[in-house]
């Protein structure tokens, strides 16, 4: 046996040397390419990375050939790559998904999964993109690490979402600790615990993630936000506040976190800081992100320091701000004709994400018009139209639901503000009763320490937002002009 092996090994080395020294292009292959059919031409161009030229040729080939053709799957794959390289990203991935579903070619599927992974990881594609395809039930055992981690993570999530926790866990168990997907899985596990109302377990996981090294920024931020909300829910305001403070300044939903932190500060009793955070929301960049909750909290803060006039002003401000939209909602305006509501809804993540996709689809569709080959231009455009219709349908459904939810929310807030108005009135009356018997304190005694850090100049810098505090005078021990009416 050993001798045989030795002989074979020597032979192998000889062949190797020969190959390196005397390599020539394969004649047979060249011969086949010389047939100059569309596939070959396209392939030739593709291999030279001339995707724009390859694209119409692949397109023609695919139109004239069926899946039974030997080259069909590869042609489709190259076509997808060409689309991608020409900027037709969504159509490219559409082709790729078709291949995942239908092609038994492990190499092609591996390449596609290799393309999908970074696209999803870099948020070029939504995580949900593949969840509603047959990807979830496919067997990808042949995919090797590290790509298999991505597969296991995604298939694990699929199983979880469909309610098959154990099967999902089996997928997650195949992900090693050092993989980025492991942290993602841990985060999702925490979310699963939250869904099951097992918050303590979720907190343990999230704290663990935040204490780990090499955690991606996005997972870290998500963990901070989730943990902060859990702490807030448990009334651990100090811990929540520390986390809110850490959340990235340039987070796309910064306004939301400013408001959440303002609530935290409010509950901690730091009304001046809470108000500072709220006022920071007046910054131009948050112009369209102010929610009814902003008015409620602001009014509540003023009310708590007996600054009733300001509190009432905020109630009025709310009414002014939402007067038109509320009036339209009350008159049952349809969403399509309701511009203010559409504006508000477009800021909702659930809608805005879809709108971005739609925008990109429109853009890519427009690009098809620039193609000189009318056949491919028409075909791609019609396919884009299908994708656009799909997203329009999706947005419409989500927007309709969101519109109802918005309407309900605004009606509820309107009622809350009315209650606030009433409570302010009640407080004013009760305070007069209480104050009447007490000696008046001097203003300085009630003034918060260090009242103004940054003066209000209608301009904000993100760095300042966290520290902005506003002068708030506790007027609970003083009588105002209007008090006379209650005496």
């Amino acid at each position, binding site marked *: *046996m050993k001798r*045989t092996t030795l002989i*074979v*090994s020597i*032979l*192998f080395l000889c*062949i190797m040397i*020969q*190959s*390196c020294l005397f*390599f020539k*292009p*394969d004649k*047979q*292959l060249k011969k*086949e390419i010389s047939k100059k059919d569309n596939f070959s031409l396209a392939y030739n161009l*593709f*291999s030279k*990375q001339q995707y724009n030229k390859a694209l119409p040729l692949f397109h023609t080939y695919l139109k004239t050939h069926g899946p039974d053709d030997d080259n069909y799957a*590869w042609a489709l*794959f*190259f076509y997808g*790559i060409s689309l991608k390289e020409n900027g037709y990203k969504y159509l490219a991935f*559409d*082709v790729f998904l*078709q291949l995942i579903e239908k092609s038994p070619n492990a*190499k092609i599927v591996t*390449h596609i999964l290799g393309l999908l992974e970074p696209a999803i990881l870099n948020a070029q594609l939504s995580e949900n993109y593949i969840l*509603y*395809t*047959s*990807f*979830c*039930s*496919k*067997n990808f055992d042949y995919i090797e690490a590290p790509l298999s981690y991505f597969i296991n993570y995604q*298939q694990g999530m*699929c*199983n979880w979402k*469909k309610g*098959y926790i154990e*099967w999902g866990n*089996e997928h997650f168990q195949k992900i090693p600790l050092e993989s980025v997907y492991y942290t993602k899985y841990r985060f999702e596990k925490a979310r699963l615990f939250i869904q099951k109302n097992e918050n303590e377990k979720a907190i343990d996981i999230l704290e663990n993630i935040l204490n780990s090294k090499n955690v991606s920024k996005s997972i870290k931020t998500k963990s901070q936000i989730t943990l902060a909300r859990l702490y807030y829910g448990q009334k651990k305001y100090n811990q929540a506040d520390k986390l809110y403070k850490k959340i990235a300044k340039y987070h796309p939903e910064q306004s939301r976190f400013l408001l959440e932190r303002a609530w935290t500060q409010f509950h901690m009793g730091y009304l001046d800081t809470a108000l500072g955070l709220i006022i920071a929301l007046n910054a131009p960049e948050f112009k369209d992100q102010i929610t009814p909750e902003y008015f409620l909290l602001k009014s509540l803060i003023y009310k708590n320091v007996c600054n009733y006039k300001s509190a009432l002003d905020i109630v009025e401000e709310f009414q002014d701000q939402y007067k038109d939209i509320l009036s339209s*909602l*009350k*008159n*049952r305006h349809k969403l399509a004709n309701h511009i203010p509501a559409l504006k508000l809804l477009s800021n909702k993540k659930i809608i805005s994400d879809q709108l971005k996709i739609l925008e990109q689809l429109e853009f890519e569709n427009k690009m098809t018009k620039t193609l000189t080959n009318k056949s491919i231009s028409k075909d791609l455009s*019609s*396919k884009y139209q*299908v*994708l656009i*219709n*799909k997203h329009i*349908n999706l947005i419409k459904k989500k927007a309709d639901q969101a519109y*109802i939810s918005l*309407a*309900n929310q605004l*009606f*509820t807030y309107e*009622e809350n503000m009315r209650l606030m108005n009433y409570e302010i009135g009640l407080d004013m009356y009760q305070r007069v009763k209480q104050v009447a018997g007490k000696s008046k304190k001097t203003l300085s005694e009630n003034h918060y320490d260090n009242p103004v850090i940054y003066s209000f100049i209608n301009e904000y810098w993100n760095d300042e937002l966290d520290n902005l505090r506003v002068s708030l005078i506790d007027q609970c021990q003083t009588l105002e002009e209007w008090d006379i009416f209650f005496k």
Partner: protein
Amino acid sequence: MSNTRGVGYIFQMKTINIYLILTVLLMGTGFFQKSLLAQSNDKTLKYVKDFSGEKKEERAFIKKLLKDENKINLAIKNTKLLIEKSRNKPYLPELYLRLADLYVEKSRVSYFIRKSLKKEPLTKLETLPSTSLKNQAIEVYQRILDHFPDFEQCDKVHFFMAHEFKELGKIDQMIIHYRKIIKSFPKSLYVPESYLLLGDHYFKSQDLDMAQTHYSEIIKFPDSPAFSIAQYKLGWCHINRAEFQKAIKRFEIALSSAKKHKTNDIDTYRRIDIRLESLTDIAFCYVDCYKKHSPEKAIAYFQSYAWSLGSFITSLEKLAGRYFLKKKWKHSIIVYRKLSELQENTDNLLIYSQKIFECLRETNEYEHANTDVQIIIKALEKQRYSTHISKKEKVKKEKEYEIFAREIITSLHDNARKQNNIEAFKQASDAYLVYLDFFRETDVFWEMTANCAEALFASENFIKAGQHYEKLYNNAPEKIVNKEEVLFSALTSYYHALKNKDKLNPYEKNYCRQGLLSNGKIFVDKFPNAKQIQDVLFNMAWITYDEGKYDLAIEQFKSFINTYPNGRATRAAIHLIMDAFYMKEDFKGLVIFGKDILSNPKITNDKLKKEVSTIVSSAEQKIVYTLSLSAIDDWEKGRTKILSVARKHAGSSLGEKALQSLLGPSLEKKDLLTFFQTGNNLIVNFPNSSNYEKTLRLMIQTSMKIGDYKLLANYLELFCNSLPKQEDNLLFLKQASHIYQQLGAYKKANKLFDQLIYKHENLKQSQIDYVVFQWIDNLLTENLIIETLPVLKNYLNILSEEGSTIARAKLSTAYFKLGEQKNGNKILKKMKKLIKSTKKPIIQDALLEMKFYSLSKTYSDYLKCQMKETLDNKLFKQKQKQFAILQKGYNQILSYPSPRWVLASCAHLYKVYYDFANFLRNAPAPKMGETEKKQYMELIEKQAQTYEKNALKFKKTFLDRSQAWSICDKKLIPFFNMINDKEIKNIFYKEPSPLLNSNVFEPSKDLIPLYKERLSEPKELTSLYELAKLYAEKKEWGQIFLLCENGLEKDDISTKDRSMLISIQGLICLYKNNDNMAQTLLKKSLEIDPNNVVSRINLSALLLNYGYLSKSKEILSKKTSLSTKDSVWIHPGAK
């Protein structure tokens, strides 16, 4: 030609082939050149490389085979050479084995070369080289066995030989070699493999017993990779015998063991996933094995054995297919539904949909079929938005499946109608909604929308029903829908939704309200003559009400009532208006509205009017309640407000309620003037009110509490007069008469006595007697003797025996007093015997009075009978006769123990004797001489003196008796004055207060502060004394007496206070000319508290006034000091 080889074989092949193939491949693909390119990290090149590599593989394969063939030839040649040179070498059998392997390999390569070049199945001739090479290999193997029987790898040689025999179709030979392994090499690794391959042979030959026997042997090798395959194969043996349960058990073991032996070295099964095969084959058996298992149980079973979503789907597909095949439609449908949940592949989803539809058709049961429509739509939606399916195909499929979906929905709806069940309608409506959301452009869209609306309404999803009806009204063609009907249906839907508005969120509430309002307006405009117009108008108003816009709602409802005063919703409209007023707390508005309704002649529903009346009354109550509440905070302001309301609504029930509401608080606030004024107002102006009695009782109670007995008596009398049938009437009559009596209002008292006697059937006998005699006393006190006659006569029969006796005596007395001697004597005659026999002082007293007054006429005539200038014998005799009558009569009285009439008789006897003495002295002497005359005069004088002596004897008796008895009785004063030289003056009598005004129902303002005190501290006597003093100032003796009486009714007063109160009552009796009672009370007071200075002084003075000096002195003998506060209770005469 298959390539089924064993473990060792494969291993050996690997050692050569891997190197060879790799080398060929690397050369063929230009690996070394491309690897340089790969360094550029260009993905495209990587793709190109993979593609070209794959393409080249095919070409390279033939190339490689040709090269391999050469190499194998070379290897065979070299091996042969080596064999030749290795005779007797220990590795010779190994070289033979290598040679055989090379023949086998050459056979395989040769076969593939031919096959690859021809690309068609080979003929027998073409396979000949390959076959001969195999035979060559067999020969070599046989040589090894023959020449080297002790070769350690003989088992392997047999195994390979068996394989080659199998390839050559020499099955018997194959069996021999496998059996040889089993028999001769029981510990060989090839034993389980041999059993397996033999088992496969028998299985193929349909020899199930043999196959099973062989497969079963493998079970003894649980660590063998063949174990799980054997289990799987055994499973199939059982299937062939229709032993499904056993088969399932085998598959289950295969499943679990296959997991353990994941790698399988047996070529035959290398590409087979035993786990998946077992799982799907379980599905094959399951349907037959567990016929009674529910599909849900089956799904759970497969889930428990599946290891991934993919395996689960695969097994369920098989299961659903088997159920379908076995016509178990209900089972099949449920599994297909589950699959539709799991599957995302469009084609598969469409297949499932079709299967489901077929099942539904077969079963004709549409329970949960709404889910099936969702499945169809899910598949179609995936298809619609797929870029890989042609438009034509999409249209075709949508058309085809639209019919499926529609048929399912229609059946669902029909079933729901038959069942008339909300849940069934809900399923139908769910299906409709999914359908309509997807099939927006079908020809039947509007018909389906109309059906959907109907199903939604029936399922009580009113909001969505309303939306669909609205859509139908706005967009559906007139030919398809009745616009009036659908618009009204929309309105009805929103109305029903709002009926359970607690279940709606703010958005839904608003949606329904606005939907009802806006569509209502359209309906009214477009279909003014619709029969439902009334309902629409009502509901529009109702919705305005529901929104809390009460003013507007009131206007709308009023307009509705005007239009439909007796409409079916009028009652509700009226109630809602009243409710709106109520919600606004506008009770005045409510009352005004309610009264308008009550006076509206167009509204003929009496029951409704009754309801309105009740509500109005309640509202009025609310008004005054509110006013009362405000009055508690600010009495003056509140009081004024209530009075203002009362004035404004004088005579109305609201006015009454306003006044009623003032009563309590005014009493609470002790605003007595307001209280009495209000109470009087109520009593006067609302005599028919249900609260009348209550009010009157409150007035009575309060008058009593404050101690104003004039008011109390008036209210009591009012109560008795106005509420004659009331339970307390008799008691109140007694109390009122008693109070009047005490207040000196005898006429009033007598009037009430009259009423009491009228109701004598309800009185006790003693009470009847008391009332009659009190009445008589009152009349006598006022000297109305003649008026006593009818009283005594009329009620004689109802009096007790004793009372009757007394009454007759009193009647007789009255007659005598009135000079009706005849009548008087008539009675007297009948009662003469009784005077002697009776022992009861009270009867005796009356009888003696009668007797005494029976002499009045004689006494009067006697005193008048005086001689004039001439002696008149007749007159003398008359006088003498009268004297005798009087003497006899009065003396008779003296024999009875009745102090009053004894003293009176003594006084009259004194007078009679004295008068006779004077009569004698003053009588003119007859005509005679002086001497005779003198003698005559002396004789007369002597006789006169005798009479005078007797007179003085009676005087003495009178004085002795009176001193002994110390009677202080105003009625005796004339007798005292008759006897005494000094006249007894009526020094104690005081002017009584002005006569009681029965129209006064308010307390005196100056007394109010004290009345308040009485109210605040009813147990405190200080205020009682203070009030008594004020009454004294006003000479309201009766009030004082009753006040003291009230004070004495308390249980916890001190002896001192008790004595004092009685003492004051005694004083009052002095003031009221009732010396007898005064004496009794003062005595009683002293008995209780001998230190009571007031009583001692007053009693002493009283006795002194009657001339009882010693007794008077005796009472005053004890040294006492009078406090200033008590000095007011000393009679001025006593001072």
